[in-house]
């Protein structure tokens, strides 16, 4: 059984030449110390991003409610707020635990153990990335959020939606309720004419989009519009140049009570912050997976056996991997829980 103390003593003798001086500063190897300082600097980068998110959120009168934005779920379930991201968190936590096991097996110089537990860690990382891929695809492809456009808005006053004839409908909302603006399928005019000529084609397309909108849980508005018709003003809704459908509603409180208004886009910074911060974290996970694989292959090939330093390389990538989990704790807190 190799405890850390004896491992440390070995390191002192072995690395004396590189990290010269009688004893190692902080009684830790050069590589591990520098990994700690790299992680410190990386923590500041992430903190900068998250603080920017907080400052912009504080500066905005309304902000998309995360449990409304992130309620979607694969396999057609749409009304499960936060459950999918909780699953993603669990994947990272579990892969963090398997990483600790890999480091422990490394201390025992157990090659098979290191390879097994690192393999499980890689699987956890890949699983997390797949979930994030699905989440992004859903937000971009189906809900039409982009870096500059945020279709998730919030009502500031209570009111009631108008139906397609411009009359008040049964559908009411209160102040603070969230909404998403759906997007109509915009067809180029030439395309539409050509489709008319060939019969079925335009029908098939409308069918496709109808299915898509149904899948995102939108009970409302599955429509195809021609580009030349935009912007389109109807009694119940307004379609802007890009095809986003702004529903009309009548407010029932506040100074503008009784006015007919249209749904507006949510704060545009939300999309940019979401994609940059989760993207930067996802990039860390991706590079972590790549380095885990490299070290996994090295460990399996027996490279670290001859070094006899308790698989220190596995410890270093372990520090990095735990840091990725640590950052996710705060991304999860800031984006999804608060």
């Amino acid at each position, binding site marked *: *059984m190799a*405890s*850390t*103390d004896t491992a440390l003593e070995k390191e002192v003798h072995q690395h004396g030449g590189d990290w010269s001086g009688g004893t190692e500063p*902080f*009684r*830790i190897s050069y590589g591990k*110390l520098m990994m*700690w*300082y790299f*992680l*410190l600097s990386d*923590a*500041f980068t992430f*903190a*900068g991003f998250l*603080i*920017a998110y*907080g*400052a*912009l*959120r*504080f*500066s*905005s*009168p309304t902000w998309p*409610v995360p*449990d409304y934005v992130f309620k979607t779920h694969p396999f057609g379930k749409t009304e499960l*707020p*936060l*459950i999918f991201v*909780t699953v993603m*968190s*669990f994947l990272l*936590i*579990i892969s*963090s*635990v398997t*990483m*600790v*096991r890999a480091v*422990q097996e490394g201390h*025992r110089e157990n090659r098979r153990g290191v390879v097994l537990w690192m393999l499980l860690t890689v699987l956890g990382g890949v699983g997390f990335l797949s979930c994030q891929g699905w989440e992004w695809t859903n937000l971009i492809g189906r809900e039409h959020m982009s870096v500059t456009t945020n279709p998730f808005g919030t009502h500031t006053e209570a009111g009631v939606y108008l139906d397609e004839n411009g009359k008040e409908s049964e559908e009411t909302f209160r102040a603070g309720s969230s909404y998403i603006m759906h997007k109509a399928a915009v067809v180029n005019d030439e395309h539409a004419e050509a489709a008319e000529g060939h019969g079925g084609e335009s029908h098939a397309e409308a069918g496709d989009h109808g299915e898509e909108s149904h899948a995102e849980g939108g009970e409302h508005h599955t429509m195809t519009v021609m580009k030349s018709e935009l912007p389109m003003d109807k009694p119940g809704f307004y379609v802007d140049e890009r095809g986003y459908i702004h529903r009309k509603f009548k407010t029932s409180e506040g100074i503008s009570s009784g006015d007919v208004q249209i749904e507006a886009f949510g704060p545009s910074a939300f999309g940019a912050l979401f994609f940059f911060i989760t993207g930067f974290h996802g990039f860390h996970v991706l590079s972590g997976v790549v380095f885990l694989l490299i070290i996994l292959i090295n460990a399996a090939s027996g490279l670290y056996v001859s070094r006899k330093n308790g698989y220190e390389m596995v410890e270093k990538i*372990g*520090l990095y991997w*735990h*840091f990725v*989990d*640590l950052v996710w*704790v*705060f991304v*999860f*807190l800031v984006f*999804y*829980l*608060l």
Partner: protein
Amino acid sequence: MSNLSYEESKKKVFKGLWLLAGVTVAEVLISLFGKGYIGGDIAHSVSWLIYIVGLAIITLSIYKAYFIIYEFMHMRYEVKTLAMSVLLPTVLLVWAIIAFFQEGGSWKARRQQIKEKNEQPAKQEGMLQDDPETIHLWG
């Protein structure tokens, strides 16, 4: 780690898994309660509850961070000066959080002020009244 046997430290790791998992589930439940999905309308009717909920979630997250750094990253078993050289610089972030959140609140107040002033009719004796272009520029 140094004075624990292999079996003991193995057990400790899996205890850590249940701890982190439990704290995460608790966070999600508290968050859903704060948003009114669990526990009915209490969250919407008691206005200060949202601050308690936020504080609870933040505290639990910081506990998770502490656990990951001290147990999983073995900071507990490093030399104390190393731990301090890594952890003390993050105290600067406390300043950054307070300063930038304050700034964000101030942007909101300014924007609100400008909006209110724009909604007021221009004063009769003001110069602006005669010059529509200036009104447009300042509007």
